[in-house]
């Protein structure tokens, strides 16, 4: 009897798991960056004690000037509110042109998209610097800068939402003989109102945070006071300012979460 040898088909090769390659590439890149930036984490380690000592200077907030802080805070909130309003107005006007399915033609679509893109790409602090140079110090240039920068974000969000709307809704309204403006007014905006409100809240939230630091470039608000106190090493007052800013931002955070919960 001859032994029968059964030839088994070879097992398929174990699939290659690329995770390790990605991970090692990532680590190598990080090492290169640390090397290139000449970061020395040793100083950080040796300096831990110094850092704790430094932070302990903030432990006695001094609220003597609270009334002035509240006034500055009001200015900051006003800046954020006006900036957001400007952004909403500009975005509402631009978004239909930047939505592929509502734009009258391909050229307007491209132009509107690039315009929004450009507004988004310019950091708001840079815009604030430019507006301060043109308009002088004060919260007004800050509001303008916030408005221009966030209009880019808001316009993009709106346009993307308008593109996601079910095409049937647009067709139904077009079938009644609606003009392009009517199409936007009766099919576009009503379909995305919830989303749009959510985006507006997000933008307002973000603008309050940014308005708090716009003072650094002379655009008014509480940021300038913080900058000055830090420069003068008045840690007690800086701590009080940080507490005031923190409390405001957390309050607005909770408020917007609450409103968003109501919307859904």
């Amino acid at each position, binding site marked *: 009897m001859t032994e029968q040898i059964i030839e088994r088909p070879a097992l398929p090769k174990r699939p290659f798991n690329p995770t390790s390659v990605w991970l090692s590439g990532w680590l190598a890149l990080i090492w290169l960056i640390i090397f290139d930036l000449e970061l020395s984490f040793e100083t950080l380690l040796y300096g831990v004690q110094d*850092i704790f000592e430094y932070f302990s200077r903030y432990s006695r907030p001094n609220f003597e000037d609270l009334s002035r802080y509240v006034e500055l805070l009001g200015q900051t909130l006003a800046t954020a509110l006006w900036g957001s309003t400007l952004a909403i107005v500009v975005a509402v006007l631009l978004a239909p042109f930047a939505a592929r399915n509502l734009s009258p033609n391909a050229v307007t679509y491209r132009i509107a998209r690039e315009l929004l893109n450009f507004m988004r790409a310019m950091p708001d602090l840079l815009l604030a610097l430019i507006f301060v140079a*043109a308009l002088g110090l004060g919260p007004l240039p800050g509001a303008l800068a916030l408005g221009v920068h966030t209009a880019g974000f808001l316009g993009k969000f709106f346009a993307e939402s308008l593109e996601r709307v079910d095409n049937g809704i647009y067709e139904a309204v077009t079938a009644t003989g609606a003009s392009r403006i009517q199409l936007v007014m*009766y099919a576009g905006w009503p379909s995305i109102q919830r989303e749009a409100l959510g985006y507006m809240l997000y933008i307002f939230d973000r603008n309050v945070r940014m308005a*708090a630091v716009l003072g650094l470039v002379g655009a008014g608000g509480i940021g300038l006071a913080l900058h000055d106190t*830090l420069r003068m090493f008045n840690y007690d007052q800086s701590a009080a300012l940080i507490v005031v800013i923190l409390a405001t931002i957390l309050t607005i955070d909770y408020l917007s979460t609450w409103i968003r919960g109501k919307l859904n």
Partner: protein
Amino acid sequence: MSNSKLCWPTPNGRPGLVPTLSLLACILLLVISAPALELDLGRIVTAIPRMLAFAGNLLVLPDWEYLPILAKNILQTIEMTFLATSIALVISLPLGILAAKNTSPHPAVFHATRNLLSLMRALPELVWALVFVSAVGLGPLPGIMALSFVTVGFMGKFFAESIEVVDQRQVEGVVAQGASWLQLRTFAHFPQAFPDFVGTVMYVLDHNLRAAAILGLVGAGGIGYDLVMAMRMFDYDRLLPIALSIYIVVTLLDRASDHFRMRMI
């Protein structure tokens, strides 16, 4: 029914009560806050010639000798962004697991982590950068620390939210294999939330790049310092290349992240 051509899309053709009231409240708020803003139309109108003059000043040939330094500083900005995002990613993954309702070991831990994360993201990067610059000195290190600190707050929250919406049946399937606490999180929750994680990381990278571009304002490294100095010194031949390069880098990352997100989801 009203016969007018343009009417509100409501049954009776009139605007609804709640939207009208909210709109009125908003307008009232705007009017009240106008004095605080020192709003003055005349000022804006008189500023237009100055804006035009400023724009005219920008139209000069760039300072060619400055371009290599510009490239170096832009590279530094990108490196800061990448490093800060990586550090934040490593820290916020475990925090995200602790801050998700369905993977947190205990409700107390869940609430504590959630509150910690919202405290971390409450203040903008620039405030932290100011503080860290005072603590560890000038350079990219305080910038990276500030960026990672704030980003952990954002990423941890986003991660937690995407972990909370995973499909419970797949988790039960892994439980039935006798998976331990950690194995459950690694093999049931993590793979499901992974596409969301990628989206979050891309968003945060984008956000950090924009933030890193201005951190130099307070001496925390990156291109921002050159930008402010060019503004202050009226070096218009440097200003335009700086602004242009920021625009290009931000746009490129924007496009890349759009492309990446489309592929992942």
